[in-house]
């Protein structure tokens, strides 16, 4: 299965806590192909963020195998295989937007000229041209998050890992950013792993929806979306969209068992 960008087989992760072991991931099997847009959805504690962090090499699974681009997540991390977008924009308040975006480039040792060229390109990609000289506090929350996406894109990793990037934003802004993200995905042909707890967001964005449930964190359903790649916002009123959303909801409910 070397064709998968991400390949997880029998993945387990147990955290040792003061209250005993917590089974954050149990027997996770998943293959993600190049160019896919995969959403992970589930209630808190279902392991969706943990799985993303495993892919990023920020957590180490206790059992099972996980490869990114055919190598271990740690090697992939050191090869700068992915850009990671956190829930908070996490821009440095003491750097301008342009200097924030060039932070990874500085660390990776790009030349000054190359840094400037790339910053300009990715800021255009997230529609923040002309904002490079502003400081983060001068931008709205949505713009800050776009700047943080630009930062993750700046070094041209083929894989984009996004951990509830729009979770803290209001719905109107979120709709706009979702549209922009789809456009950006079509332009750059990246593989995107996207953690969310919003059903419409997951269905609207994804080619593949991974439904997860907690205690222990596991995958309960994997839905390949039949929606076309071209998606106007009003696709959310179509029968197909509603059918997929319904299936996600069913999956979430089944996973919850008698918990709720």
């Amino acid at each position, binding site marked *: 299965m070397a064709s998968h960008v991400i390949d997880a087989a029998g993945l387990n992760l147990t955290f040792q806590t003061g209250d005993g072991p917590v089974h954050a991931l149990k027997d996770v099997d998943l293959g993600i192909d190049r160019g896919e847009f995969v959403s992970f959805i589930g209630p808190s504690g279902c392991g969706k963020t943990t799985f993303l962090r495993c892919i990023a090499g920020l957590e180490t699974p206790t059992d099972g195998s996980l490869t990114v681009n055919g190598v271990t997540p740690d090697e992939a991390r050191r090869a700068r295989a992915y850009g*990671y977008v*956190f829930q908070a924009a*996490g821009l*440095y*308040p003491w*750097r301008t937007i342009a200097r924030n975006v060039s932070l990874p480039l500085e*660390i990776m040792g790009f030349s000054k000229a190359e840094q400037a060229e790339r910053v300009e390109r990715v800021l255009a990609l997230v529609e923040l041209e002309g904002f490079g000289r502003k400081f983060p*506090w001068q931008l709205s929350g949505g713009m800050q998050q776009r700047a943080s996406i630009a930062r993750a894109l700046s070094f041209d990793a083929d894989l984009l890992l996004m951990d509830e990037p729009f979770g803290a934003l209001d719905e109107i802004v979120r709709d706009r950013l979702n549209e922009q993200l789809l456009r950006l995905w079509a332009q750059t042909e990246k593989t995107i792993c996207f953690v969310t707890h919003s059903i419409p967001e997951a269905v609207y964005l994804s080619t593949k929806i991974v439904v997860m449930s907690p205690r222990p964190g596991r995958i309960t359903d994997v839905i390949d979306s039949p929606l076309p790649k071209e998606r106007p916002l009003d696709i959310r009123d179509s029968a197909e969209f509603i059918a997929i959303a319904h299936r996600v909801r069913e999956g979430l409910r089944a996973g919850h068992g008698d918990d709720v």
Partner: protein
Amino acid sequence: MKSLGPVLTVVAALLALWYAAAVVMNAQWTYDQAERAGTEVTLSELLADTMTQRRPKLPAPHQVLSELKKTVIDTKVTSKRSLVYQASITLGATLTGFLTGTLLGIALAVAVVRSRVMELSVTPWAIISQTIPIVALAPMIVVLSSRIGIEGRLIPKTVIAAYLSYFPVFVSMVKGLRSPDAMQLDLLRTYGAAPGQVFRKLRLPASLPYFFAAMKISMAASLVGVIVAELPTGAVQGLGSRLLIGSQNGQPLMIWAALVVASALGAGLILMVGLLERLLGRMMGVRA
């Protein structure tokens, strides 16, 4: 200028309080003099006399002012009687002590943040160092440094000032360097940043607000340290020595003038740190 009214009110209230206290505290001497001379004092005589005694218990503000005028403006700055000259001696030691202490505080903080062993071994001693009263330690340092053949007073004064001023910087810098949260550190990990890069690009800039807050405290501590170092052991120069000579010779005006100059010096130094902070803040995009 809306704030001018309240500010002036407070100043006026303080001055009134000062004058009232001067009358109360100096009255006894006036009464004693009158008794010895076998005369009565009227209230107006009492008020006039308590404002103009040559060796009052508490000099009135205008007396301090005229002493300041005499020793700051009317005396040549090269003269030992000039408070400007004495203040410059204190200022020099304060700055060298402050610089030494700040650098030491930063170095210790960096070491502690980088290494668990250093944290366990240095932190307790740093805290213990501040529990020793400086008035007990200062004479020892002065005497010891002359025993081992160090000429002049600058080095022992610097040592004492640094001893007091490193601590606020140390404590704040440890906190500041540790202020970035887990997400910020994770982000740099995803870039494969080396520890040195994490330090330079994240920890150091994140610690700057803490650093400036600490510098203001340690500047004041440094000044206090120098003055304490000038007090004992027959120091012949600096504001501290003026305080000592004033109290030995029973010249309260001299003491008060030196005190005013010392506090003005402290305020000026802290103001300078604040200006530096503003300047750097503007470069680093702090919202105005």
